[in-house]
Protein backbone atom coordinates (compact mmCIF):
# COMPACT_ATOMS: atom_id res chain seq x y z
CA UNK A 1 0.00 0.00 0.00
CA UNK A 2 1.31 3.42 -0.91
CA UNK A 3 1.91 6.17 1.63
CA UNK A 4 0.82 9.46 0.14
CA UNK A 5 1.52 12.95 1.41
CA UNK A 6 -1.49 15.23 1.04
CA UNK A 7 -0.17 18.74 0.36
CA UNK A 8 -3.25 20.29 2.00
CA UNK A 9 -3.30 18.19 5.19
CA UNK A 10 0.52 18.16 5.17
CA UNK A 11 0.49 14.59 6.35
CA UNK A 12 1.54 11.23 4.95
CA UNK A 13 -1.50 8.96 5.00
CA UNK A 14 -2.23 5.41 3.72
CA UNK A 15 -3.44 4.94 0.17
CA UNK A 16 -6.83 3.73 1.42
CA UNK A 17 -7.76 7.37 2.13
CA UNK A 18 -7.08 8.36 -1.48
CA UNK A 19 -8.47 7.86 -4.97
CA UNK A 20 -6.24 8.04 -7.98
CA UNK A 21 -7.73 10.40 -10.55
CA UNK A 22 -5.60 9.74 -13.61
CA UNK A 23 -2.96 11.65 -15.48
CA UNK A 24 -2.39 15.28 -14.42
CA UNK A 25 -1.94 18.41 -16.50
CA UNK A 26 -4.38 17.43 -19.22
CA UNK A 27 -6.18 20.69 -19.96
CA UNK A 28 -9.90 20.50 -20.61
CA UNK A 29 -10.98 22.63 -23.56
CA UNK A 30 -13.08 25.69 -22.73
CA UNK A 31 -15.05 24.99 -25.90
CA UNK A 32 -15.61 21.22 -25.80
CA UNK A 33 -18.22 21.10 -28.57
CA UNK A 34 -15.81 22.91 -30.87
CA UNK A 35 -13.07 20.30 -30.41
CA UNK A 36 -12.08 18.24 -33.45
CA UNK A 37 -12.36 14.45 -33.17
CA UNK A 38 -8.56 14.22 -33.09
CA UNK A 39 -8.20 16.71 -30.27
CA UNK A 40 -11.01 15.14 -28.29
CA UNK A 41 -9.39 11.72 -28.63
CA UNK A 42 -6.09 13.14 -27.33
CA UNK A 43 -7.83 14.82 -24.41
CA UNK A 44 -10.15 11.98 -23.48
CA UNK A 45 -8.49 8.70 -24.41
CA UNK A 46 -4.79 9.02 -25.18
CA UNK A 47 -2.53 8.71 -22.13
CA UNK A 48 1.24 8.91 -21.77
CA UNK A 49 1.35 5.80 -19.51
CA UNK A 50 5.06 6.34 -18.80
CA UNK A 51 7.44 3.70 -17.49
CA UNK A 52 9.22 6.06 -15.13
CA UNK A 53 8.13 9.48 -13.89
CA UNK A 54 4.38 10.09 -14.02
CA UNK A 55 2.44 13.24 -13.17
CA UNK A 56 -0.90 12.20 -11.76
CA UNK A 57 -3.89 13.48 -9.83
CA UNK A 58 -5.02 12.10 -6.49
CA UNK A 59 -7.98 12.97 -4.34
CA UNK A 60 -7.81 12.79 -0.55
CA UNK A 61 -11.23 11.19 -0.54
CA UNK A 62 -11.45 10.25 3.15
CA UNK A 63 -9.54 13.27 4.41
CA UNK A 64 -9.83 16.82 3.14
CA UNK A 65 -11.51 15.51 -0.06
CA UNK A 66 -9.40 17.81 -2.21
CA UNK A 67 -7.66 17.03 -5.50
CA UNK A 68 -3.90 17.48 -5.74
CA UNK A 69 -1.07 16.41 -8.02
CA UNK A 70 1.76 13.99 -7.45
CA UNK A 71 4.98 12.96 -9.15
CA UNK A 72 5.71 9.25 -8.87
CA UNK A 73 8.06 6.72 -10.41
CA UNK A 74 5.91 3.97 -11.93
CA UNK A 75 8.72 1.42 -11.74
CA UNK A 76 9.36 1.74 -7.99
CA UNK A 77 5.98 3.30 -7.07
CA UNK A 78 7.93 5.81 -4.93
CA UNK A 79 6.58 9.33 -4.76
CA UNK A 80 8.98 12.12 -5.72
CA UNK A 81 6.72 14.92 -4.51
CA UNK A 82 3.12 16.07 -4.23
CA UNK A 83 1.82 19.59 -4.86
CA UNK A 84 -1.43 21.47 -4.76
CA UNK A 85 -3.89 21.57 -7.67
CA UNK A 86 -3.37 24.60 -9.88
CA UNK A 87 0.35 24.80 -9.21
CA UNK A 88 2.49 24.52 -12.34
CA UNK A 89 4.09 21.22 -13.36
CA UNK A 90 7.43 21.23 -11.51
CA UNK A 91 10.34 21.85 -13.87
CA UNK A 92 12.94 20.32 -11.56
CA UNK A 93 12.31 17.22 -9.52
CA UNK A 94 14.13 16.72 -6.23
CA UNK A 95 16.42 13.70 -6.30
CA UNK A 96 15.70 12.76 -9.93
CA UNK A 97 18.47 12.77 -12.52
CA UNK A 98 17.94 14.70 -15.80
Amino acid at each position, binding site marked *: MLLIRCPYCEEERPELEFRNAGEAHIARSANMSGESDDDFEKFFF*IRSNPKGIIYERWRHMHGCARFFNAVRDTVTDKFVMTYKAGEPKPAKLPGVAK
Partner: protein
Amino acid sequence: MKKYSVFAIAREAMRGHKGWEEQWSSPEPKKEYDVIIVGAGGHGLATAYYLATVHGITNVAVLEKGWLGGGNTGRNTTIIRSNYLYDESAGIYDHALKLWDGLSQELNYNVMYSARGVMMLAHNVHDIQVLKRHVHANRLNGIDNEWLSPEQAKEFCPPLNISRDARYPVVGAALQRRGGTARHDAVAWGYARGASARGVHIIQNCEVTGVKRAANGAVMGVDTTRGFIGAKKVGVVAAGHSSVIMNMAGVRMPLESYPLQALVSEPVKPVVPCVVMSNTVHAYISQSDKGELVIGAGTDQYVSYSQTGGLHILQHTLDAICEMFPIFTRMKMLRSWGGIVDVTPDRSPILAKTPVPGLYVNCGWGTGGFKATPGSGHVFAHTIAKDDPHPINAPFTIERFRTGRLIDEAAAAAVAH
Protein backbone atom coordinates in the same frame (compact mmCIF):
# COMPACT_ATOMS: atom_id res chain seq x y z
CA MET B 1 9.96 -32.14 -34.23
CA LYS B 2 9.42 -35.59 -32.73
CA LYS B 3 5.78 -36.29 -32.09
CA TYR B 4 4.72 -36.80 -28.48
CA SER B 5 2.64 -39.92 -27.93
CA VAL B 6 2.11 -42.77 -25.54
CA PHE B 7 4.58 -44.77 -27.63
CA ALA B 8 7.19 -42.02 -27.25
CA ILE B 9 6.77 -42.18 -23.48
CA ALA B 10 7.12 -45.96 -23.51
CA ARG B 11 10.18 -45.75 -25.78
CA GLU B 12 11.87 -43.15 -23.59
CA ALA B 13 11.02 -45.05 -20.44
CA MET B 14 12.93 -47.99 -21.90
CA ARG B 15 16.09 -45.96 -22.54
CA GLY B 16 16.28 -43.74 -19.52
CA HIS B 17 14.59 -40.67 -21.06
CA LYS B 18 17.73 -39.78 -22.99
CA GLY B 19 16.00 -39.29 -26.33
CA TRP B 20 13.82 -36.27 -25.62
CA GLU B 21 14.81 -33.33 -27.78
CA GLU B 22 14.63 -29.68 -26.80
CA GLN B 23 11.19 -28.25 -27.43
CA TRP B 24 12.36 -25.14 -29.26
CA SER B 25 15.74 -23.97 -30.51
CA SER B 26 17.49 -20.80 -29.39
CA PRO B 27 19.15 -19.49 -32.57
CA GLU B 28 21.30 -16.39 -32.99
CA PRO B 29 19.23 -13.56 -34.47
CA LYS B 30 19.54 -13.05 -38.23
CA LYS B 31 20.03 -9.57 -39.71
CA GLU B 32 16.60 -9.50 -41.28
CA TYR B 33 13.25 -11.30 -41.05
CA ASP B 34 9.98 -11.01 -42.93
CA VAL B 35 8.09 -10.44 -39.68
CA ILE B 36 9.21 -9.59 -36.15
CA ILE B 37 6.88 -10.22 -33.22
CA VAL B 38 7.74 -8.25 -30.09
CA GLY B 39 6.85 -10.34 -27.07
CA ALA B 40 7.01 -14.13 -26.63
CA GLY B 41 3.94 -14.56 -24.48
CA GLY B 42 1.01 -16.74 -25.47
CA HIS B 43 -0.45 -14.19 -27.89
CA GLY B 44 2.89 -13.47 -29.58
CA LEU B 45 3.86 -17.12 -29.92
CA ALA B 46 0.37 -18.02 -31.18
CA THR B 47 0.71 -15.25 -33.79
CA ALA B 48 4.03 -16.69 -34.95
CA TYR B 49 2.59 -20.21 -35.00
CA TYR B 50 -0.38 -19.22 -37.17
CA LEU B 51 1.82 -17.09 -39.45
CA ALA B 52 3.77 -20.28 -40.12
CA THR B 53 0.93 -22.80 -40.30
CA VAL B 54 -1.92 -20.82 -41.87
CA HIS B 55 -0.06 -18.25 -43.97
CA GLY B 56 3.21 -20.08 -44.76
CA ILE B 57 5.34 -17.21 -43.40
CA THR B 58 8.18 -18.89 -41.52
CA ASN B 59 10.94 -16.26 -41.74
CA VAL B 60 9.73 -14.86 -38.42
CA ALA B 61 11.46 -13.82 -35.19
CA VAL B 62 9.74 -13.59 -31.84
CA LEU B 63 11.76 -11.27 -29.58
CA GLU B 64 11.41 -11.54 -25.83
CA LYS B 65 13.14 -9.40 -23.23
CA GLY B 66 12.91 -12.10 -20.54
CA TRP B 67 12.05 -15.74 -20.98
CA LEU B 68 9.11 -16.94 -23.04
CA GLY B 69 5.82 -17.11 -21.21
CA GLY B 70 7.35 -15.28 -18.25
CA GLY B 71 5.04 -12.28 -18.34
CA ASN B 72 1.29 -12.30 -17.99
CA THR B 73 1.05 -15.70 -19.71
CA GLY B 74 2.59 -17.20 -16.58
CA ARG B 75 0.78 -14.90 -14.15
CA ASN B 76 -2.90 -15.19 -15.02
CA THR B 77 -5.57 -17.36 -13.42
CA THR B 78 -6.09 -19.43 -16.62
CA ILE B 79 -9.83 -18.85 -16.95
CA ILE B 80 -11.39 -19.45 -20.35
CA ARG B 81 -14.87 -18.26 -21.29
CA SER B 82 -16.62 -16.37 -24.10
CA ASN B 83 -19.78 -15.05 -22.41
CA TYR B 84 -19.20 -11.41 -23.37
CA LEU B 85 -22.10 -9.10 -24.05
CA TYR B 86 -21.43 -7.40 -27.37
CA ASP B 87 -21.40 -9.05 -30.78
CA GLU B 88 -17.82 -8.00 -31.53
CA SER B 89 -16.52 -9.44 -28.26
CA ALA B 90 -18.62 -12.58 -28.62
CA GLY B 91 -17.07 -13.02 -32.07
CA ILE B 92 -13.46 -12.88 -30.98
CA TYR B 93 -13.73 -14.67 -27.65
CA ASP B 94 -15.83 -17.50 -29.05
CA HIS B 95 -13.45 -17.82 -31.98
CA ALA B 96 -10.78 -18.44 -29.34
CA LEU B 97 -12.96 -20.85 -27.39
CA LYS B 98 -13.55 -22.94 -30.51
CA LEU B 99 -9.79 -23.12 -31.05
CA TRP B 100 -9.17 -24.14 -27.41
CA ASP B 101 -11.29 -27.19 -28.16
CA GLY B 102 -8.81 -29.33 -30.05
CA LEU B 103 -5.73 -27.20 -29.38
CA SER B 104 -3.88 -30.01 -27.62
CA GLN B 105 -4.32 -32.22 -30.69
CA GLU B 106 -3.41 -29.40 -33.09
CA LEU B 107 -0.20 -28.60 -31.18
CA ASN B 108 0.54 -32.21 -30.18
CA TYR B 109 1.03 -30.69 -26.73
CA ASN B 110 -1.24 -31.16 -23.76
CA VAL B 111 -2.51 -27.67 -22.86
CA MET B 112 -4.88 -29.30 -20.36
CA TYR B 113 -7.92 -27.37 -21.55
CA SER B 114 -10.69 -28.44 -19.21
CA ALA B 115 -14.25 -27.32 -20.01
CA ARG B 116 -15.32 -27.56 -16.39
CA GLY B 117 -17.77 -24.67 -16.60
CA VAL B 118 -17.59 -21.02 -15.58
CA MET B 119 -20.28 -19.93 -13.16
CA MET B 120 -20.94 -16.23 -12.51
CA LEU B 121 -22.85 -15.41 -9.35
CA ALA B 122 -25.68 -12.92 -8.89
CA HIS B 123 -26.03 -11.37 -5.44
CA ASN B 124 -28.85 -8.87 -5.96
CA VAL B 125 -31.63 -7.94 -8.34
CA HIS B 126 -29.33 -5.83 -10.51
CA ASP B 127 -26.93 -8.73 -10.94
CA ILE B 128 -29.85 -10.91 -12.00
CA GLN B 129 -30.90 -8.39 -14.63
CA VAL B 130 -27.39 -7.91 -15.98
CA LEU B 131 -26.49 -11.60 -16.01
CA LYS B 132 -29.79 -12.60 -17.62
CA ARG B 133 -29.16 -9.96 -20.28
CA HIS B 134 -25.81 -11.63 -20.87
CA VAL B 135 -27.42 -15.07 -21.04
CA HIS B 136 -29.88 -13.89 -23.70
CA ALA B 137 -27.30 -11.90 -25.68
CA ASN B 138 -24.91 -14.86 -25.64
CA ARG B 139 -27.55 -17.31 -26.82
CA LEU B 140 -28.50 -15.00 -29.69
CA ASN B 141 -24.83 -15.14 -30.67
CA GLY B 142 -24.80 -18.94 -30.52
CA ILE B 143 -22.80 -19.01 -27.27
CA ASP B 144 -23.95 -21.37 -24.54
CA ASN B 145 -24.96 -19.70 -21.30
CA GLU B 146 -27.72 -20.74 -18.95
CA TRP B 147 -29.44 -19.44 -15.85
CA LEU B 148 -29.23 -21.39 -12.59
CA SER B 149 -31.21 -21.11 -9.38
CA PRO B 150 -29.17 -20.88 -6.13
CA GLU B 151 -29.88 -24.57 -5.51
CA GLN B 152 -28.66 -25.52 -8.98
CA ALA B 153 -25.57 -23.37 -8.43
CA LYS B 154 -24.86 -25.22 -5.19
CA GLU B 155 -25.32 -28.53 -6.95
CA PHE B 156 -22.82 -27.46 -9.60
CA CYS B 157 -20.33 -26.18 -7.02
CA PRO B 158 -20.94 -27.87 -3.63
CA PRO B 159 -18.64 -25.73 -1.40
CA LEU B 160 -20.61 -22.58 -2.30
CA ASN B 161 -22.54 -20.98 0.55
CA ILE B 162 -26.09 -20.22 -0.65
CA SER B 163 -27.54 -19.52 2.78
CA ARG B 164 -30.12 -16.72 2.75
CA ASP B 165 -28.35 -14.88 5.56
CA ALA B 166 -24.93 -14.95 3.92
CA ARG B 167 -23.26 -11.58 3.67
CA TYR B 168 -23.36 -11.90 -0.13
CA PRO B 169 -26.42 -14.10 -0.71
CA VAL B 170 -26.42 -16.06 -3.95
CA VAL B 171 -29.69 -15.36 -5.76
CA GLY B 172 -28.82 -17.02 -9.05
CA ALA B 173 -25.97 -17.72 -11.41
CA ALA B 174 -25.11 -17.77 -15.10
CA LEU B 175 -23.25 -20.86 -16.25
CA GLN B 176 -21.19 -21.27 -19.40
CA ARG B 177 -20.46 -24.99 -19.53
CA ARG B 178 -17.88 -24.70 -22.32
CA GLY B 179 -15.82 -22.32 -20.18
CA GLY B 180 -13.04 -23.65 -18.02
CA THR B 181 -9.30 -23.51 -17.54
CA ALA B 182 -6.08 -24.52 -19.29
CA ARG B 183 -2.47 -24.90 -18.24
CA HIS B 184 -1.07 -21.45 -19.07
CA ASP B 185 2.62 -22.40 -19.35
CA ALA B 186 1.81 -25.30 -21.64
CA VAL B 187 0.02 -22.91 -24.01
CA ALA B 188 3.17 -20.81 -24.44
CA TRP B 189 5.39 -23.88 -24.65
CA GLY B 190 3.13 -25.68 -27.11
CA TYR B 191 2.93 -22.72 -29.48
CA ALA B 192 6.69 -22.11 -29.12
CA ARG B 193 7.46 -25.73 -29.99
CA GLY B 194 5.09 -25.69 -32.96
CA ALA B 195 6.44 -22.39 -34.27
CA SER B 196 10.09 -23.32 -33.75
CA ALA B 197 9.60 -26.63 -35.60
CA ARG B 198 8.39 -24.66 -38.62
CA GLY B 199 11.42 -22.37 -38.67
CA VAL B 200 10.35 -19.47 -36.48
CA HIS B 201 13.22 -18.03 -34.43
CA ILE B 202 12.39 -17.50 -30.76
CA ILE B 203 14.99 -15.14 -29.34
CA GLN B 204 14.88 -14.75 -25.57
CA ASN B 205 16.76 -12.21 -23.45
CA CYS B 206 16.53 -9.77 -26.34
CA GLU B 207 14.84 -6.52 -25.34
CA VAL B 208 13.55 -4.13 -27.98
CA THR B 209 14.97 -0.67 -27.30
CA GLY B 210 13.80 1.21 -30.39
CA VAL B 211 11.66 0.96 -33.52
CA LYS B 212 13.40 2.15 -36.71
CA ARG B 213 11.35 3.88 -39.40
CA ALA B 214 12.32 4.79 -42.97
CA ALA B 215 12.03 8.28 -44.43
CA ASN B 216 8.54 7.45 -45.73
CA GLY B 217 7.50 6.48 -42.21
CA ALA B 218 7.36 2.72 -42.75
CA VAL B 219 8.91 0.30 -40.29
CA MET B 220 12.46 -0.92 -41.08
CA GLY B 221 13.14 -3.00 -38.01
CA VAL B 222 13.91 -2.80 -34.33
CA ASP B 223 16.94 -1.94 -32.18
CA THR B 224 17.49 -4.53 -29.51
CA THR B 225 19.96 -5.31 -26.74
CA ARG B 226 21.45 -7.75 -29.27
CA GLY B 227 21.74 -5.22 -32.09
CA PHE B 228 19.55 -4.03 -34.94
CA ILE B 229 17.21 -6.58 -36.53
CA GLY B 230 15.49 -5.63 -39.77
CA ALA B 231 11.91 -6.42 -40.82
CA LYS B 232 9.29 -4.78 -43.02
CA LYS B 233 6.56 -5.93 -40.67
CA VAL B 234 6.62 -5.67 -36.89
CA GLY B 235 3.84 -6.90 -34.62
CA VAL B 236 3.80 -5.50 -31.08
CA VAL B 237 2.33 -7.99 -28.58
CA ALA B 238 3.92 -6.69 -25.40
CA ALA B 239 0.98 -6.62 -22.92
CA GLY B 240 1.67 -4.06 -20.17
CA HIS B 241 4.61 -2.62 -22.11
CA SER B 242 2.76 -2.21 -25.43
CA SER B 243 2.47 1.55 -25.05
CA VAL B 244 6.20 1.77 -24.24
CA ILE B 245 7.09 -0.03 -27.50
CA MET B 246 4.51 1.95 -29.50
CA ASN B 247 5.99 5.19 -28.14
CA MET B 248 9.33 4.11 -29.63
CA ALA B 249 7.58 4.19 -33.02
CA GLY B 250 6.03 7.57 -32.23
CA VAL B 251 2.50 6.30 -31.67
CA ARG B 252 0.71 7.38 -28.49
CA MET B 253 -1.83 4.84 -27.30
CA PRO B 254 -5.15 4.90 -25.44
CA LEU B 255 -3.68 2.59 -22.80
CA GLU B 256 -2.89 2.62 -19.12
CA SER B 257 -0.93 -0.12 -17.33
CA TYR B 258 -1.96 -1.35 -13.90
CA PRO B 259 -0.80 -4.08 -11.52
CA LEU B 260 -3.14 -7.07 -11.31
CA GLN B 261 -2.61 -9.66 -8.62
CA ALA B 262 -3.41 -13.31 -8.10
CA LEU B 263 -2.61 -15.89 -5.47
CA VAL B 264 -2.71 -19.62 -4.84
CA SER B 265 -3.37 -21.65 -1.72
CA GLU B 266 -1.70 -24.74 -0.40
CA PRO B 267 -2.70 -27.76 -2.53
CA VAL B 268 -5.71 -29.77 -1.34
CA LYS B 269 -7.81 -32.61 -2.73
CA PRO B 270 -10.38 -31.73 -5.43
CA VAL B 271 -13.01 -29.46 -3.88
CA VAL B 272 -13.90 -26.76 -6.45
CA PRO B 273 -15.13 -28.57 -9.58
CA CYS B 274 -15.59 -25.46 -11.74
CA VAL B 275 -14.67 -21.79 -12.05
CA VAL B 276 -16.72 -19.47 -9.84
CA MET B 277 -16.72 -15.74 -10.43
CA SER B 278 -18.44 -12.95 -8.63
CA ASN B 279 -18.06 -9.58 -10.27
CA THR B 280 -20.04 -7.72 -7.65
CA VAL B 281 -17.75 -8.59 -4.77
CA HIS B 282 -14.80 -9.12 -7.09
CA ALA B 283 -13.58 -12.59 -6.45
CA TYR B 284 -12.94 -15.52 -8.68
CA ILE B 285 -11.68 -18.94 -7.88
CA SER B 286 -10.86 -22.26 -9.44
CA GLN B 287 -8.68 -25.21 -8.52
CA SER B 288 -5.60 -26.23 -10.45
CA ASP B 289 -4.85 -29.84 -11.26
CA LYS B 290 -2.10 -29.64 -8.63
CA GLY B 291 -4.83 -28.90 -6.08
CA GLU B 292 -4.09 -25.25 -5.38
CA LEU B 293 -6.99 -22.86 -5.20
CA VAL B 294 -6.26 -20.21 -7.82
CA ILE B 295 -7.70 -16.85 -6.85
CA GLY B 296 -7.74 -13.66 -8.86
CA ALA B 297 -7.82 -10.21 -7.30
CA GLY B 298 -8.45 -6.79 -8.79
CA THR B 299 -6.17 -4.12 -10.20
CA ASP B 300 -4.53 -1.39 -8.20
CA GLN B 301 -5.87 2.09 -8.88
CA TYR B 302 -2.68 3.68 -10.18
CA VAL B 303 -0.45 3.29 -13.25
CA SER B 304 2.52 1.10 -12.41
CA TYR B 305 5.11 -1.19 -13.96
CA SER B 306 6.26 -2.58 -10.60
CA GLN B 307 4.77 -6.10 -11.00
CA THR B 308 3.57 -5.90 -7.41
CA GLY B 309 0.39 -4.54 -5.91
CA GLY B 310 -1.06 -3.50 -2.58
CA LEU B 311 -1.83 -6.13 0.05
CA HIS B 312 -5.24 -4.58 0.72
CA ILE B 313 -6.32 -5.59 -2.81
CA LEU B 314 -5.65 -9.25 -2.00
CA GLN B 315 -7.33 -8.94 1.39
CA HIS B 316 -10.43 -7.51 -0.23
CA THR B 317 -10.67 -10.52 -2.54
CA LEU B 318 -9.98 -13.04 0.22
CA ASP B 319 -12.68 -11.43 2.36
CA ALA B 320 -15.16 -12.12 -0.42
CA ILE B 321 -13.88 -15.67 -1.03
CA CYS B 322 -14.24 -16.51 2.66
CA GLU B 323 -17.80 -15.17 2.71
CA MET B 324 -18.85 -17.18 -0.33
CA PHE B 325 -16.89 -20.30 0.68
CA PRO B 326 -16.74 -20.47 4.50
CA ILE B 327 -15.02 -23.85 4.07
CA PHE B 328 -11.86 -22.01 2.92
CA THR B 329 -11.47 -19.63 5.86
CA ARG B 330 -8.62 -21.65 7.36
CA MET B 331 -6.77 -22.35 4.10
CA LYS B 332 -3.21 -21.05 3.90
CA MET B 333 -2.24 -18.96 0.92
CA LEU B 334 1.13 -19.99 -0.49
CA ARG B 335 2.11 -17.42 -3.09
CA SER B 336 0.87 -14.13 -4.49
CA TRP B 337 2.22 -12.15 -7.41
CA GLY B 338 1.44 -9.28 -9.71
CA GLY B 339 1.48 -8.70 -13.47
CA ILE B 340 1.16 -5.49 -15.43
CA VAL B 341 -1.96 -5.31 -17.57
CA ASP B 342 -2.62 -2.76 -20.31
CA VAL B 343 -6.15 -1.44 -20.12
CA THR B 344 -8.04 0.45 -22.83
CA PRO B 345 -10.75 3.00 -22.04
CA ASP B 346 -13.52 0.64 -23.25
CA ARG B 347 -11.86 -2.48 -21.77
CA SER B 348 -11.79 -4.17 -25.16
CA PRO B 349 -8.52 -5.08 -26.88
CA ILE B 350 -6.84 -3.45 -29.86
CA LEU B 351 -5.80 -5.84 -32.66
CA ALA B 352 -5.07 -3.69 -35.62
CA LYS B 353 -2.92 -1.96 -38.14
CA THR B 354 -1.44 1.27 -36.84
CA PRO B 355 -0.83 4.69 -38.43
CA VAL B 356 2.74 3.46 -39.12
CA PRO B 357 2.96 1.29 -42.28
CA GLY B 358 4.21 -2.20 -41.42
CA LEU B 359 3.55 -1.79 -37.69
CA TYR B 360 0.77 -3.85 -36.12
CA VAL B 361 -0.40 -3.98 -32.54
CA ASN B 362 -2.18 -6.58 -30.43
CA CYS B 363 -2.71 -5.09 -26.98
CA GLY B 364 -5.23 -3.78 -24.50
CA TRP B 365 -6.36 -7.20 -23.30
CA GLY B 366 -6.43 -5.72 -19.83
CA THR B 367 -7.22 -8.19 -17.11
CA GLY B 368 -8.58 -10.96 -19.33
CA GLY B 369 -6.32 -11.85 -22.25
CA PHE B 370 -5.37 -15.45 -21.55
CA LYS B 371 -8.72 -16.86 -22.66
CA ALA B 372 -8.31 -15.25 -26.06
CA THR B 373 -4.79 -16.55 -26.79
CA PRO B 374 -5.53 -18.90 -29.73
CA GLY B 375 -8.12 -16.64 -31.36
CA SER B 376 -6.02 -13.53 -30.89
CA GLY B 377 -2.96 -15.14 -32.45
CA HIS B 378 -5.03 -16.55 -35.29
CA VAL B 379 -6.62 -13.27 -36.39
CA PHE B 380 -3.52 -11.18 -35.65
CA ALA B 381 -1.46 -13.47 -37.92
CA HIS B 382 -4.08 -12.84 -40.63
CA THR B 383 -3.83 -9.07 -40.05
CA ILE B 384 -0.04 -9.13 -40.45
CA ALA B 385 0.07 -11.57 -43.36
CA LYS B 386 -2.63 -9.86 -45.43
CA ASP B 387 -1.96 -6.32 -44.18
CA ASP B 388 -5.69 -6.29 -43.57
CA PRO B 389 -7.70 -7.32 -40.50
CA HIS B 390 -9.65 -10.57 -40.32
CA PRO B 391 -13.43 -9.86 -40.16
CA ILE B 392 -13.36 -10.99 -36.51
CA ASN B 393 -10.83 -8.38 -35.38
CA ALA B 394 -11.86 -5.65 -37.83
CA PRO B 395 -13.86 -3.75 -35.14
CA PHE B 396 -10.92 -3.76 -32.70
CA THR B 397 -9.12 -0.75 -34.23
CA ILE B 398 -7.19 2.07 -32.59
CA GLU B 399 -9.33 4.54 -34.54
CA ARG B 400 -12.46 3.60 -32.61
CA PHE B 401 -11.37 6.05 -29.92
CA ARG B 402 -11.57 8.85 -32.49
CA THR B 403 -14.77 7.77 -34.20
CA GLY B 404 -16.49 6.81 -30.96
CA ARG B 405 -17.36 3.33 -32.19
CA LEU B 406 -16.34 1.76 -28.89
CA ILE B 407 -16.85 -1.85 -27.83
CA ASP B 408 -17.88 -0.82 -24.39
CA GLU B 409 -17.65 -4.02 -22.36
CA ALA B 410 -16.58 -1.98 -19.33
CA ALA B 411 -19.93 -0.24 -19.10
CA ALA B 412 -21.77 -3.51 -19.50
CA ALA B 413 -20.98 -4.53 -15.90
CA ALA B 414 -20.83 -8.20 -14.99
CA VAL B 415 -17.59 -8.42 -16.93
CA ALA B 416 -14.86 -9.61 -14.67
CA HIS B 417 -11.77 -8.18 -16.23
